């Protein structure tokens, strides 16, 4: 068994006093886990990810990343180990060119310029877009922006990768491309999404959240095929597992005619 | 209200850069004091926001025409006057560089005319004093309209002043003012109404975003109306002083303009100030009135000059045509080689 990379112990968090988001939540992730964090809208997926990188602070309980507790004074160290890709690429990418944006984090950690450059090259080739290096951000397509966002995180060579709704606004080809790249990333990754097909293609372990509680935690093959469990918590079987795509289409045609 | 470079002379540009620079330095000092690094992305995004909203046309009821937003007061009512002022500098720089809206040299003037008045007078003086005992929609409307109208009038007055002191227009100062102020009264009114509408919406949906509300209940109001007025008057006097110093130091433009109006080229300048001006003049005399000894007009345009211009233009056009000819030929042969 590989060693534990993220350890969460009795974590409680709320935005407002009387409505807790998480109540004494405990879970741990290992080095090669590919965790799919699933749940309906408002289940607490994004908040969970933000707690891990210290963008939100828990009221009680503890989070340890590679044995380091997440606290205000350890944040710079934590954030070197853990990368977070935002849902909106336009938020993630704030410099004007791809190269400057990917180099932003390495420069902030005061690496020498040669090291910064080699990290930029490596990060861009990891996501197969070295040709975009000198392009202006505002000229990228949605899919390219997502890949650049990922590269800006990979340039920090993180041990852990967190992604919030990575598949939103991607066309089929970009989506397939992203799945391929994520599967190449051999470290711990946590992907929050309600796109269950995407999760099915990228994750081996599933964490099902509902109203801030973990209602299921297990191998992807088990949970993603458990239709009763998924529907009970506001989700549906991944389309690729239903074989009902046609039926759904016919239903909607009927609906449109009526 | 954006001034072009052609409307000013270096002395005006320098003075206004100095004035705006001082206000910017003070604002940066204030923003740094707040220790709020999260304000930097807010300033960036809000600057882009102001720029984008300036592009939206607003129908003005009953006129068929449309108005736009300028944004100084709006920004300051959200970010506070200091961060608002710095944001407006960024917006004006973007407009100047990318859209030729106002010149690079005139940026100091434009920052002063549009950002300084809007943020410091509009927000620090008018908005804050009206809001100090808490806000209401009525108060927001009054503060917005009052703030926009007054600051735009001040801005328009400054535009006239700067153009006039630069001596590029033969228009008498009074006539210039008579043309500028009424137009900007209307513009200010519309801008005030738009600002009021937006701020009222914010007040209803997320009032905590508004700056300077109910500060009187806080331990101590740091600026009284009188004190702020005093500071503004001192600033105005200082700038007026520096301007007139430069005016007496640099004989071109300014003096020429004054000569037209007053019939005299001499400005009253006394003692130390005059000496200082003299030394500045000596230092800046690398730009003498150019003229060859014995040419027809010492400081103006000569016939030989115009003829020279014509010849140069002809040569330039010929060179350009030749250049294009050879370039096209080269490109053509290149294409042939590829094909």
């Amino acid at each position: 068994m590989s060693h534990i990379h993220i350890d969460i112990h009795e974590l409680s968090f709320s935005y407002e006093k009387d409505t807790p988001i998480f109540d004494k939540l405990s879970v741990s992730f290992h080095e090669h886990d590919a965790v799919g964090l699933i749940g309906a809208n408002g289940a607490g997926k994004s908040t969970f990810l933000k707690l891990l990188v210290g963008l939100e602070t828990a009221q009680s309980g503890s989070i340890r990343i590679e044995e380091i507790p997440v606290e205000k004074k350890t944040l710079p160290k934590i954030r070197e180990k853990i990368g977070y890709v935002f849902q909106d690429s336009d938020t993630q990418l704030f410099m004007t060119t791809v190269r400057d944006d990917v180099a932003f984090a390495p420069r902030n950690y005061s690496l020498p310029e040669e090291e910064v450059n080699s990290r930029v090259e490596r990060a861009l080739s990891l996501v197969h877009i070295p040709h975009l290096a000198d392009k202006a951000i505002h000229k990228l397509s949605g899919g390219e922006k997502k890949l650049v966002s990922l590269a800006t995180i990979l340039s920090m060579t993180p041990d852990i990768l967190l992604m919030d709704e990575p598949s939103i606004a991607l066309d089929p080809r970009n989506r397939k491309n992203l799945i391929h790249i994520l599967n190449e990333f051999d470290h711990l990754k946590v992907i929050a999404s309600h796109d269950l097909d995407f999760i099915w293609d990228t994750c081996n372990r599933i964490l099902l959240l509902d109203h801030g509680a973990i209602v299921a935690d297990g191998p992807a093959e088990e949970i993603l095929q458990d239709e009763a469990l998924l529907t009970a918590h506001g989700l549906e079987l991944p389309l690729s597992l239903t074989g009902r795509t046609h039926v759904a289409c016919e239903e909607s045609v009927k609906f449109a005619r009526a | 209200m954006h001034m072009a470079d052609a409307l000013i002379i270096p002395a005006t540009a320098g003075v206004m850069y100095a004035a705006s620079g001082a206000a910017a330095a003070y604002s940066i000092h204030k923003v740094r004091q707040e220790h709020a690094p999260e304000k930097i992305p807010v300033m960036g995004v809000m600057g882009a926001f102001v720029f984008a909203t300036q592009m939206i046309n607003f129908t003005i009821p009953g006129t068929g025409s449309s108005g736009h937003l300028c944004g100084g007061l709006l920004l300051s009512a959200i970010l506070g006057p200091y961060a608002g002022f710095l944001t407006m500098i960024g917006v004006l720089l973007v407009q100047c560089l990318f859209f030729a809206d106002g010149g690079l040299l005139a940026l100091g003037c434009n920052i002063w005319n549009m950002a300084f008045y809007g943020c410091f007078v509009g927000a620090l003086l008018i908005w804050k004093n009206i809001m100090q005992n808490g806000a209401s929609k009525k108060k927001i409307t009054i503060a917005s309209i009052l703030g926009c109208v007054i600051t735009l009038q001040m801005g328009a007055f400054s535009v006239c002043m700067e153009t006039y002191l630069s001596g590029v227009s033969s228009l008498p100062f009074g006539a210039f003012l008579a043309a500028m102020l009424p137009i900007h009264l209307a513009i200010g009114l519309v801008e005030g109404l738009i600002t009021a509408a937006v701020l009222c919406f914010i007040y209803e949906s997320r009032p905590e975003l508004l700056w300077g509300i109910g500060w009187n209940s806080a331990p101590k109001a740091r600026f009284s109306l009188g004190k702020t007025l005093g500071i503004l008057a001192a600033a105005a006097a200082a700038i007026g002083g520096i301007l007139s110093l430069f005016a007496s130091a640099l004989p071109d433009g300014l003096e020429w303009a004054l000569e037209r109006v007053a019939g005299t080229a001499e400005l009253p300048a006394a003692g130390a100030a005059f000496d200082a001006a003299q030394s500045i003049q000596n230092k800046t005399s690398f730009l003498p009135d150019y003229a060859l000894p014995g040419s027809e007009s010492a400081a103006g345009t000569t016939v030989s000059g115009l003829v020279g211009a014509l010849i140069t233009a002809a040569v330039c056009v010929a060179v350009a045509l030749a250049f294009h000819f050879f370039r096209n030929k080269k490109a053509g042969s290149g294409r042939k080689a590829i094909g």
Partner: protein
Amino acid sequence: MSRIANAERSLKKLDELARQDTWLNRVHPLVKLLVTILYLVLVVSFQPRQLTGVLGMALYPFLLFEISGLSFKDALYRLRVVLPVVCMVGILNPFFDREPALSLFGITITGGVLTMLSLMVKGILTVLASYLLIASTTVESVCSALSMLHIPGILVTEFLLICRYVSVLLNEADRMTQAYALRAPGQKGVAPKAWGSMIGRLLLRSMDRSAELYQSMCLRGFRQEQPLFRQKSFCASDFFYLAVWTFILICLRIFPVLEILGGLFL
């Protein structure tokens, strides 16, 4: 085309030009900025009647346009903002200043006409010079030049972010006005009823976006006062460019070059 789409298009166009790989684009941004400022100062320092002196300054934009291959037509398009204002200020000069200044082939030209013409020429030249600067310099180069001039980091970062998010916000504003126009046919702009909620909503969204942006910057090690760019170093050709233009421009300002030239032919 709407103002918004227009602004988007011209931003895009300028960005494309600035990212080309031409010799003018490769000149150090600080050098280009300094030469441009020197040029602007010298042009506006001419006295109102020195029309020929101002005309001589046309050499700088003329040469740069020729050598850089930038389109003169695109630059002229920018004049539409500036010229009307400049003309409005200058157009009355001939009426107020009727003193004859010189006589050319039997026609008397008054001081007012001279000052009006030189004002217009100044207006055109200054706009062209700024265009040459920005059409050959990317946003990040402008920022690095500004920080080399010791402009505080707050302002430089803010300027960079404005440039980055202008296109994003223009896009949002465009979608909003389109959605509005589709539901309000026949209206020329946005009616007063919707002023507050429309701009207000855009404002709230921008505030939320900037909050998230700050988080994203923090996660990647952002601190308040740090340089965002490695500063580019100068090379010999940069010094050469600076020296040559400084020399030429100051010569054009001090010596009546055109008059000497014309004197040879008269």
